């Protein structure tokens, strides 16, 4: 049975304010942490960031003082929650190591969502971007070896393979081809709505992280690679946010945000083995339920909608789970590597006419070469081979097989 959030009281929002010491948790040990605990921390930080940014946007569209104050209170709590979650990242985990965690999130979260997504169009959208984030992991893993002599598998622990996806250099599309159609808010399976809201928040956080950390390096190759991939993450945010139905009112969106947070904290605590971190997920779940009640009271008062009209009687009973998706990713690689976008549709790149805006855009941005290719060449020069972690055998796409191992 999935959770019925309206049946629980949670913690009243007024009682959720925490002290500075509560907001400064002991970080995890980067050498001992379960990679999927790291990905849970990254995901939930992104979820909290979205809840804060959404609430700020909502607040900018009203001057009703009571409403603004209620939003301000819940938002302050969201901001405190964000500090607690993000504070679990240790200071000796470099931005590049964190980045590899971000792309591991992108791969295993997206793949899990795709595997469970009932709407074929949304499923296709997830598969499409999955192959792109999968490629980012490989590019950053090579940068890690190139700059730091690092071995990315010490972070991923072989749970996620590291090998090319849809090559980053070909991901750069004309902006018009990143806009998608959307689900229909009345008919959408609650699971689909949660999936889309979750991936929008995760990709947005990745975009923001690269925006801010792209200049942490002296080496031009690192700065260039972050700039290039940050722009793909912007494409991914454009792509995923298009999938949301804009018909919903601000108030309904507020309720859906709290629901997504509830579903995700509930999901995270199902798998968390670190009891200290698990207790954070539990506490935050109770906090989100309290926040949901505030949002529902606002919905009832201002829009005359009973919360039961839009809140499912039961949240999906399958938790969002971080687990290896190697076979799934390989099957999508084998079948969809050649896909590109033409307007709202996904089409094989060979079906695009030579005059398509895709090629003009590609010619412009890739005019001087692409850092995502240069980083592989540079690491081959330095390490005698590129960095890969292909635990399940050779690459399913012949053209993407390692030239060095292929010669063996």
């Amino acid at each position, binding site marked *: 049975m999935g959770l019925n959030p309206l049946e629980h009281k949670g913690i009243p929002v007024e009682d959720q304010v925490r002290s500075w010491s509560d907001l400064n948790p002991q970080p995890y040990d980067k050498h001992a942490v379960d990679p999927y605990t790291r990905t849970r921390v990254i995901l939930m930080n992104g979820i909290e960031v979205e809840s804060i940014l959404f609430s700020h946007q909502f607040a900018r569209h009203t001057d009703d003082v009571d409403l603004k104050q209620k939003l301000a209170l819940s938002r302050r709590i969201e901001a405190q929650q964000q500090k607690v979650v993000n504070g679990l990242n240790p200071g000796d985990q470099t931005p590049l190591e964190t980045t590899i965690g971000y792309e591991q999130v992108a791969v295993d979260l997206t793949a899990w969502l795709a595997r469970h997504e009932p709407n074929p169009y949304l499923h296709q959208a997830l598969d499409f971007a999955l192959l792109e984030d999968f490629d980012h992991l490989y590019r950053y893993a090579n940068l890690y070896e190139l700059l730091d002599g690092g071995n990315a598998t010490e972070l991923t622990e072989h749970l996620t393979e590291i090998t090319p996806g849809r090559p980053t250099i070909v991901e750069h599309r004309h902006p018009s081809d990143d806009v998608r159609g959307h689900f229909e808010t009345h*008919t959408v399976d609650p699971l689909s709505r949660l999936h889309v809201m979750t991936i929008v928040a995760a990709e947005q956080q990745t975009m923001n992280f690269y925006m801010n950390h792209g200049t942490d390096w002296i080496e031009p190759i690192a700065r260039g690679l972050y700039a290039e991939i940050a722009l793909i993450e912007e494409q991914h945010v454009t792509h995923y946010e298009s999938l949301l139905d804009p018909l919903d009112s601000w108030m309904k969106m507020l309720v859906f945000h709290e629901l997504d947070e509830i579903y995700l904290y509930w999901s995270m605590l199902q798998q968390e083995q670190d009891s200290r971190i698990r207790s954070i997920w539990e506490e935050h779940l109770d906090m989100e339920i309290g926040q949901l009640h505030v949002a529902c009271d606002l919905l009832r*008062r201002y829009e005359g*909608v009973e919360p039961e009209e839009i809140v499912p009687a039961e949240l999906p009973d399958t938790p969002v789970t971080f687990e290896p998706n190697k076979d799934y990713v390989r099957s999508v690689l084998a079948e969809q590597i050649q896909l590109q976008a033409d307007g*709202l549709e996904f089409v094989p790149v060979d079906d695009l006419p030579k005059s398509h805006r895709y090629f003009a855009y590609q010619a412009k941005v890739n005019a001087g070469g692409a850092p995502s290719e240069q980083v592989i060449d540079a690491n081959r020069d330095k390490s005698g081979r590129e960095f890969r972690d292909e635990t399940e055998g050779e690459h399913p796409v012949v053209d993407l097989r390692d030239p060095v191992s292929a010669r063996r």
Partner: protein
Amino acid sequence: MATTTPTLTPTFATGATAKPGDVVRVDPRRERPGDQVAPGLAEVGLNHGFVGDVLSAMLTHERCGRHLYRSVATRTNNPVLRRKYEEFGGETERHATILEDLVTQLGGDPQYVSPAARAVEGNDSRLLEATYLLAGSVDVMTQEMVMLDAVLLAESMDHANWTTLAQLTESLPEGPVRASFAAAVGDVLGEEEDHLSWARDTKARLTVMQASSKAMATTATKVEEMVDTVRGWLST
């Protein structure tokens, strides 16, 4: 006479269906193609896909109207207005049930949300939003008029919808379809005339009354005084 409770917000849980389009990617389990919207209307020679979509839009307007009335009934400071909002809200809910029943009689699906219905919901939900998002800009007395204006606008559309249905009924051949339409229109149109004329008359009455009263919302006027003033409106 309708007795059941209508669906006020069609969702996956209530069995909502919709028409897929280029931009709107409906879950295939919930797709309703245009020729399945109200097939019973084909036998009377109507463009059944079109009329089915229109009925869905009208039904949506009644559903949104129910939400509007609940909202303004909660927020008004005037007991006379509150009673009216509650009374009309109940009637509006009944209209939603009547339209659901009509759609069902025509072989259609009352859970179907047409593209036109989505547009109506867009209008209606923004109309309702406008009564609270900018509430900080207006004083207590003006806020009452903002909510009443929203009711007037909603009832203008509601009335137009039912007079449209009345004209459509006139154009139908004698038979069970016409009888279904006629029964629904006969049941509802009188109430819509009441709703619209009440909203129009009350707007005029409250405006004229305030124009000739001494109570003025200045920066020095206390909120409690204004609430007291509003509470006394229409009391005689």
